[in-house]
């Protein structure tokens, strides 16, 4: 039985400040030279329905997604469009209208607006609702976020038309838990505050199962489940303080997290316990103020923070951040990167399919190219697993730190934690499990650490 340190090393959990290095075979990248397309390509615009949160508390997370999509579309359109002919046209739809309205809207976009493709979605409550609808509509779809395991575990176990570009959700809770196990192995008690919906439940489950393995002596002493998009966390903070845990783990995000950390500051919470978040710095980076404490394990949805991979080591990221900053006067979040990458992934798939079939490739040809694609985006390599259409890239997290270059906290560049994603997610062929396949996989295959 390995020790905790050994097992962490086995998993490949590392603290370092390096960018991605090894290039695999068949990796595609943004900077690829444009080849002349085969066959005749219609010049009809390629219409993408993009649904995300444009209003409400979710908009801080949702709007950058649209901006990422937009930036990539403009880059592609500047070269004449997809295959040099088909300009990308984006139709916006507001995810905040509610799940039921969203399913109707997706149908409208496909059947009435005749979109060629669908992108977007922030809430993990919405992808399981929309995934099956997209399959019904035979609508090629790349979900950017809404990354619940449930989508490909249960809702659409054998996807044909739908893909997802950002990391699977279970990685979020697991990454957070591994970060805690590595950094603060001495903790004996911990408390939870999670938004009461799919994402919060998912983080709770995976943090719990990993921590059970890694820190068997640590006990959960308090749970609080505020409603998503709440603004008052006072009672939840009080409850947490009363339980006197060594650590608080929270998956609050966006405006909720901002309101939470301001209130927690005035309650002196950060002085009394360690804090680990899954998505603390994952919303738009500038939403968090410099009053945010340093040294908080600050999750970025186990996906991407614009400061990593650092500029000179990975020009793709430097290039993307600069363009994004110039265009929108803000820094990209993981969803902006996800949407940007997804759009270029699409472009690559279309081009590859064209080379095989000539003319404008049909959806099946594009899907064939998307499946199993390895692609180098700003955040590193992303691999689209053919069995479940889920995009995977190495999970990262880190610690909040204020630096003079930015008016908001960033991830401490010297203490970035990365984990190869395959080591924290269920492999292909693992039976579907409850609550998630990754949960049962961790529960059944990871060794139990001694105290």
């Amino acid at each position, binding site marked *: 039985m390995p020790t905790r340190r050994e097992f962490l090393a086995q998993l490949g959990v590392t603290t370092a400040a390096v960018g991605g290095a090894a290039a695999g075979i068949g990796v595609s990248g943004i900077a690829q030279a444009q080849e002349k397309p085969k066959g005749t390509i219609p010049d009809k615009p390629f219409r993408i329905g993009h649904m995300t949160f444009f209003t409400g508390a979710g908009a801080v997370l949702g709007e950058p997604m649209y901006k990422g999509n937009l930036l990539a579309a403009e880059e592609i359109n500047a070269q004449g469009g997809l295959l040099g002919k088909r300009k990308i046209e984006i139709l916006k739809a507001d995810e905040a209208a509610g799940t039921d309205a969203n399913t109707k809207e997706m149908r409208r976009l496909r059947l009435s607006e005749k979109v060629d493709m669908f992108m977007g979605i922030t809430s993990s409550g919405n992808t399981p609702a929309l995934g099956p609808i997209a399959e019904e509509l035979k609508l090629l779809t790349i979900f950017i976020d809404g990354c619940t395991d449930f989508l490909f575990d249960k809702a659409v176990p054998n996807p044909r038309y739908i893909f997802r570009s950002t990391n699977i959700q279970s990685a979020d809770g697991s990454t957070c838990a591994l970060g805690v196990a590595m950094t603060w192995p001495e903790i004996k008690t911990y408390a939870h505050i999670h938004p009461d919906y799919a994402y919060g439940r998912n983080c709770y489950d995976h943090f719990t199962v990993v921590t059970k393995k890694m820190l068997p002596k640590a006990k959960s002493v308090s749970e609080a489940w505020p409603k998503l998009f709440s603004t008052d966390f*006072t*009672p939840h903070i009080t409850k947490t303080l009363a339980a006197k845990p060594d650590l608080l783990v929270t998956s609050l995000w966006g405006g909720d997290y901002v*309101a939470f950390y301001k*209130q927690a500051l005035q309650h002196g919470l950060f002085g009394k316990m360690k804090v680990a978040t899954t998505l603390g710095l994952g919303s738009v980076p500038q939403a968090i103020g410099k009053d945010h404490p340093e040294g908080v394990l600050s999750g970025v949805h186990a996906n991407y923070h614009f400061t990593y991979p650092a500029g000179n080591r990975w020009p793709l990221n430097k290039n993307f951040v600069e363009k994004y900053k110039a265009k929108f006067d803000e820094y990209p979040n993981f969803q902006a990167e996800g949407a940007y990458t997804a759009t270029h992934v699409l472009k690559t798939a279309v081009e590859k399919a064209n080379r095989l079939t000539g003319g404008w490739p049909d959806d099946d040809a594009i899907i064939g190219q998307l499946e199993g694609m390895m692609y180098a985006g700003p955040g590193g390599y992303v691999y689209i697993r053919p069995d479940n259409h889920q995009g995977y890239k190495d999970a990262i997290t880190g610690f909040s730190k204020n630096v003079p270059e930015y008016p908001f906290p960033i991830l401490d560049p010297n203490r970035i934690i990365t984990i190869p994603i395959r080591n924290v997610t269920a492999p292909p062929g693992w039976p579907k499990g409850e609550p998630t396949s990754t949960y049962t996989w961790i529960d059944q295959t990871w060794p139990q650490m001694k105290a």
Partner: protein
Amino acid sequence: MDILVVHLFNALLYASVLFLIAGGLSLIYGVMRIVNLAHGNLFALGAFATAWAIGQLFAGSDSAWLFLLLPTGAILAALLGAVLEPTLLRPFYRRPEEYQLLVTFGLLMILEDLIRFVFGAYPRSASVLFEKAGSLHVGEYVYPRYNLMVIAIGGLAALFLWAFIYRTKFGVVLRATSQDMRRASALGVNVNLVYVQAFTIGCFMAGLAGSIIVPGQSAVLGMGVDALVLSFIVVVIGGLGSLEGALVGALIVGIIREIGISVFPEIELAVLYLIAAGVLFVRPAGLFGRAA
């Protein structure tokens, strides 16, 4: 022991805000027999307006004078109320209740988007006041001073309202109108004036609730709809049209919520509604209500 004090503060904080919202709703119903479904949106308007004034108009300022901007939202809500009552609601007093409910439901939808249009779709905050006020020690715990200010404002508002209604001449007129509008009118009371005043006060209370809550929390779209349903619970428990009922109902809801979150974290919200349902089955007119 200290933690109990903190829990009590939390309950009072919630109750203060709820009392202001539900009290306004109940006052308007008591005088005009109209249930304003858009009432929650006046609360939201108060929050957004104050957040705009402090967080945007005077962004970056750190002056203690900023506290003077706190009532911005309340005043704006009151002004809107003073305009809405004579223009939109007055034609409906003689018409069946379903139309009154519907016109305020329409107003709710319009105000929801009006707020979005004017103040934008993003959450807004005015946390500088919350931070300026700092914290104080409650035994081994620290507690935000600002929250105590909110409790004080809620308490003062209740006291002021009581004095206003039971100790002033206008209060007499208000109560007379509420009991028998026709007789009051026959006695020379300008009922239209009383109505517009009562509605304005009710809106002011809702706006004030939004104004004082926003520095400690933030303003988000949809907060009005949520607030309305919570204040319905308050008036259902306390009895529609009764200010005492609104006060007691707000305290009950505040306490139950605090206990619910601490003891039944899985179902905090449901506990609240279940208790309201329990009261309904036993006393359908509420604790202080006069049922039809």
